[in-house]
């Protein structure tokens, strides 16, 4: 069984919601990411989304753009992202890792080679931002054959039938984009997000994770009351931006995530 399925099954049993931090691999440095992955788990992460940096992150706001540029300037590559996962797996056999990024670095490595390398490194799912379902069929099939989940986005503007496509091709969970904008944008309408979730869950048969624009414990708890998982990315990278070394980065991130974990667990009851 894929680690993602196992994690959501366990949380469902416990009546808890998943906390999913997103960090860009190699930001602010490779060493920091290396130290950060276990720190995220200590701070209460149930699943980690690890960003593959790309030169042209069209769907991302300024924070993730800057993080990607900096990671690339340090020589980050897809092969090294996979090394980071392999390192992490030496000490953590349970926490699922989902790679999130754009199609071109994956295609440059070769889809088949990438899928095999990702499986061997201990990756559990792959979210390719610019592969919507209609362009993703062969890639999604390859991932599923290797036991990895293809993870898809759905947006407030998506027609209902899009959820059927995601149900047909995807697995693991659905990443519901909470606003019509880029990552890290400001204006999140919690009520309208919550209204969409039950329908999406029913239509896809998958857990629903909500991301794009969740910046604090209160919003996380409100979303977590209905969704199965909350994703926090841009705010986390902002916190990392000023850290002087890996230790400080870990301390900052743990201090930021712990209250969110608590809020998520308190507000949410069985």
């Amino acid at each position: 069984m894929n680690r993602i399925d196992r994690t959501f099954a366990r949380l469902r049993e416990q009546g808890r919601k998943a906390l999913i931090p997103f960090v860009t691999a190699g930001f602010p440095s490779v060493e920091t990411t290396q130290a950060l992955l276990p720190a995220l788990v200590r701070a209460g992460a149930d699943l980690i989304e690890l960003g593959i940096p790309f030169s042209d992150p069209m769907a991302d706001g300024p924070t993730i753009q800057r993080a990607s540029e900096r990671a690339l300037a340090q020589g980050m590559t897809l092969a090294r992202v996979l090394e980071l996962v392999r390192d992490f797996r030496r000490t953590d056999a349970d926490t699922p890792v989902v790679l999130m990024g754009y199609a071109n670095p994956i295609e440059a490595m070769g889809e088949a080679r990438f899928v095999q390398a990702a499986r061997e490194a201990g990756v559990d799912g792959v979210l390719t931002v610019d592969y919507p379902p209609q362009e993703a069929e062969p890639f999604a099939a390859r991932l599923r054959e290797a036991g990895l989940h293809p993870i898809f986005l759905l947006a407030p503007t998506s027609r209902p039938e899009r959820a059927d496509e995601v149900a047909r091709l995807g697995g693991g969970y659905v990443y519901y984009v909470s606003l019509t904008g880029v990552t890290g944008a400001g204006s999140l309408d919690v009520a309208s997000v919550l209204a969409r979730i039950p329908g999406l869950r029913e239509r896809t048969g998958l857990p629903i994770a909500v991301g794009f624009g969740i910046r604090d414990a209160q919003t996380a708890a409100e979303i977590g009351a209905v969704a199965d998982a909350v994703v926090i990315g841009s705010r986390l990278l902002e916190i990392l931006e000023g850290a002087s070394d890996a230790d400080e980065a870990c301390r900052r991130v743990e201090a930021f995530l712990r209250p969110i974990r608590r809020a998520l667990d308190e507000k949410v009851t069985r």
Partner: protein
Amino acid sequence: MDYHYPDARGHFGPYGGVYVAETLVPALEALAQAYEEAKRDASFRAEFEDELKHYVGRPSPIYHAKRWSETLGGAQIYLKREDLNHTGAHKINNCIGQALLARRMGKPRVIAETGAGQHGVATATVAARYGMRCVVYMGEEDVRRQAANVYRMKLLGAEVVPVSSGSRTLKDALNEAMRDWVTNVHDTFYILGTVAGPHPYPEMVRDFQSVIGKECLWQMPELIGRQPDYVIACVGGGSNAIGIFYPYLEHESVRLIGVEAAGEGIETGRHAATLVAGRPGVLHGNRTYLLQDEHGQIRETHSISAGLDYPGVGPEHALLKDLGRAEYVAVTDDEALAAFHSLCRYEGIIPALESSHALAYAAKLAPSLPRETVLLVNLSGRGDKDMHTVAERSGIRW
């Protein structure tokens, strides 16, 4: 030639498609549907043609560059004078079409990306013409290189937003325009300036620009009693080239040549010759040839001409290259500049640096061909905007 592209899902063989985040999919579906309806609506087509005639000044003439051809001593060079259009380039053809579509879809705000500034100026122009709000994204580096066009856009009432991410050129402006669109999709129409991007843009922009080639199809027989032997156009994203190539695809005896920017030379790595030196990948919503490193990161490009300084190319050009129906070559900054000066001095026409690439290849080719051979070059824009770049390059203070 049996040629029916793109397919219903926007694919040109293995290229094209809709490679975007889910947030943009509904907007692109709505756009594709609106375009399908508009294209079948006789009143939409009639208004488009009327605007091209009375506002743009079409048809644009074809001019026999006799003195220059004599000097080169070979084939005869004819110029399709898109530089004589209102706003000074072919870009306006597409902007009129998309602005009419925006109005039809009830979108009061238009946005655009621009490299050389020609597409930005054309978008600002149509926005003023139809009373729409207009925001143009332009790389910081291009804002510097094309100061006159920046001022022109502002005069026309557009807001120009300098983009400081990535390489600060056209590709980054396109990223930023997409980000604006995804955020403001309820009231905003994205007027994309080239035949790249996700479906339906490559098809839609091609259709609007095809007026160039359609005119040539009746103008050339009027002038010389037959079609030309070669059609030559510069290729950045490739909209002027598709515009003149597309109606000629079925005329198989006409050779189609796209000219890319070799910058300081292909071997130096400082160029923008995507089809000549790139390999397929996914960027800006479509699969096409790209200039990228071994890890799939998009490379910074170089060209003296801001309008060709782009690491991708329209997916239809990628297909035409693979099919062998069009050939793609590259000329350097220096060669383009030499052609620029020649056209100024022999014909009294100041060409855009983009178009100078097509001229440079024609100048290379002409001497090796008989005098009866006819080369039709798409003179896609005028060079007034490039005064600063050319003067700087020639060491002249201006």
